[in-house]
């Protein structure tokens, strides 16, 4: 009798162990899917929760319109940028169709010490008046005044476009990383000539050469985002030259330099244009 009961227990034990193997492999499959999706999109979502509420609406029963309000909370990261979103989606089901509208969107981003990401968040078109943009900075820097390239936040615009935020974030981070890589490439290639005043994530790159003392070229590379959420680079050339050289400059080369640089960019592209500038100063043919 006791033998039989032991067998029964043994049976139950082994069966339990086998059934717990299946959930483990299922979990592994889910996690694989998640890491693949994270790699594919570049977004690493770490947390998501949702709450469904039925709004008390008098018109609901009369016209057989069903309204469901869902509150969503989502947080994750894209490269160095961490984001936290809260938004509401209102689903309206009437006889003909089902429509979904994002009725509220609030974004919290942690840009660490990169002031330009602050600008990105504030320049992003958001809904008003219910939306808010909160910035948490580790080392607060003054926000730069709106440049001619950046369009300031327009409170009158009602664009609660969640997808636009993610697209904008993706392209912004792409440009950000590309700028970082490009500047680093030039710094490594010409360590004596090139310097990055703001560090490795600098927005500008200075070029000076010992052969031409007093001359300095500064390339300012801004990343701007427009009202439609489209991200594009904006490069400018600033020149610093000694007063005497300016007086000698009959052909007003210096004055027209920024414009020529813009043309050069269009013709050669960013890297080749910058390379040519560096070569120019290096050889001393200013």
């Amino acid at each position: 009798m006791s033998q039989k009961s032991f067998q029964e227990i043994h049976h139950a034990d082994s069966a339990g162990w086998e059934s717990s193997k299946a959930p483990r492999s299922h979990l592994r499959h889910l996690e694989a899917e998640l890491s693949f999706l994270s790699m594919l999109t570049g977004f690493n979502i770490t947390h998501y929760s949702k709450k469904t509420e039925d709004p008390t609406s008098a018109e609901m029963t009369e016209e057989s319109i069903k309204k469901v309000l869902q509150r969503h909370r989502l947080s994750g990261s894209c490269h160095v940028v961490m984001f936290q979103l809260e938004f509401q989606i209102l689903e309206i089901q009437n006889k003909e169709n089902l429509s979904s509208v994002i009725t509220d969107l609030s974004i919290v981003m942690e840009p660490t010490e990169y002031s330009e990401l602050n600008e990105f968040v504030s320049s992003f078109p958001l809904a008003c008046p219910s939306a808010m943009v909160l910035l948490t900075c580790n080392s607060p820097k003054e926000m730069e005044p709106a440049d001619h390239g950046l369009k300031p936040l327009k409170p009158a615009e009602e664009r609660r476009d969640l997808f636009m935020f993610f697209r904008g974030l993706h392209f912004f981070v792409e440009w950000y990383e590309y700028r970082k890589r490009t500047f680093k490439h030039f710094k490594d290639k010409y360590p004596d000539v090139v310097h990055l005043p703001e560090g490795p994530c600098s927005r500008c790159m200075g070029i000076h050469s010992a052969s031409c003392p007093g001359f300095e070229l500064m390339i300012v590379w801004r990343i701007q985002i427009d009202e439609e959420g489209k991200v594009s680079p904006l490069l400018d050339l600033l020149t610093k030259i000694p007063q005497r050289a300016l007086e000698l400059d009959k052909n007003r080369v210096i004055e027209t330099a920024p414009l020529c640089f813009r043309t050069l960019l269009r013709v050669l592209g960013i890297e080749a244009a910058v390379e040519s500038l560096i070569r120019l100063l290096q050889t001393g043919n200013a």
Partner: protein
Amino acid sequence: MEQANAVRQDGETKAGILAHLEGLEAQMNRSCKRSEELQRTQAEESALGIKIRELRCLRDKLRAEVNQRRARAKASSASVEPDQTVGIGEQEVLERKQESVKAVLQAYRFTGLSGKLTSRGVCICISTAFEGNLLDSYFVDLVIQRPLWIHHHSVPVFIPLEKIAAKYLQTDIQRFLFSLCEYLNAYAGRKYQADRLQGDFAAFLTRPLHRNSLCNLLLFTYKVEQMRQSSFCARLLYEDLTATLPTDTTVTYQGTEALSTSMEEQRASHEALFRTKPLHQVFASFAKEEELDLSLAS
């Protein structure tokens, strides 16, 4: 005399022996009885003893079963599969993890880009939206091989999918996806604006709206208030297929009356409006102006 005594003594002796024998017999009987009783009680005792042992066994068995059931009941309230007594805590942890991973996988659709692994690769779902209105979704089924290829998709023919794929698919899949996202979302936005114009603001149009399938060329004739015989003809061209605002707008005056300066101002301002604001918003502002004028007039 002695004889009499002897007789009497004999009688007494005889009586005495008989009594003695009787006494012995009785004794014997009594002891027999006692031993019988003893045997009986002993037998009873042993029988009871066996019964006790059996009952004890049964009690132990029932106790064990009660404990098992208690453990099972506890496990079943925490997990779905109750028939194991070992590894219950593990089961709970696993299932909670599964739930959270599933939730995060679902959340990817809010980025506009989500996907599911298939046997051969991945099926990617691109969602579109415009101004907070969630619109159509499209899918692209990719087979992960060298080279990557698109098994099938639901992208409309007028979206330059092949061009985008030729440019990015093999070298940078992320870029391919986001580029496609841009095109699809822009198309969805343009389509939404055109639909809204046709639906909500049809009253302004004097003739039906002309549009192409890509919704990047719109032609329409419309009237605003104070225009009786005349109308404006607008032509909106969206050269940038990743944009929801036109690159080129032309508004021309159509009518028999002479073009007054105020009308010309209106025409120019409308031309600028169409270039800077979404189409349906422009007409919404027209409608508001009319309402305002009506309320002022009355």
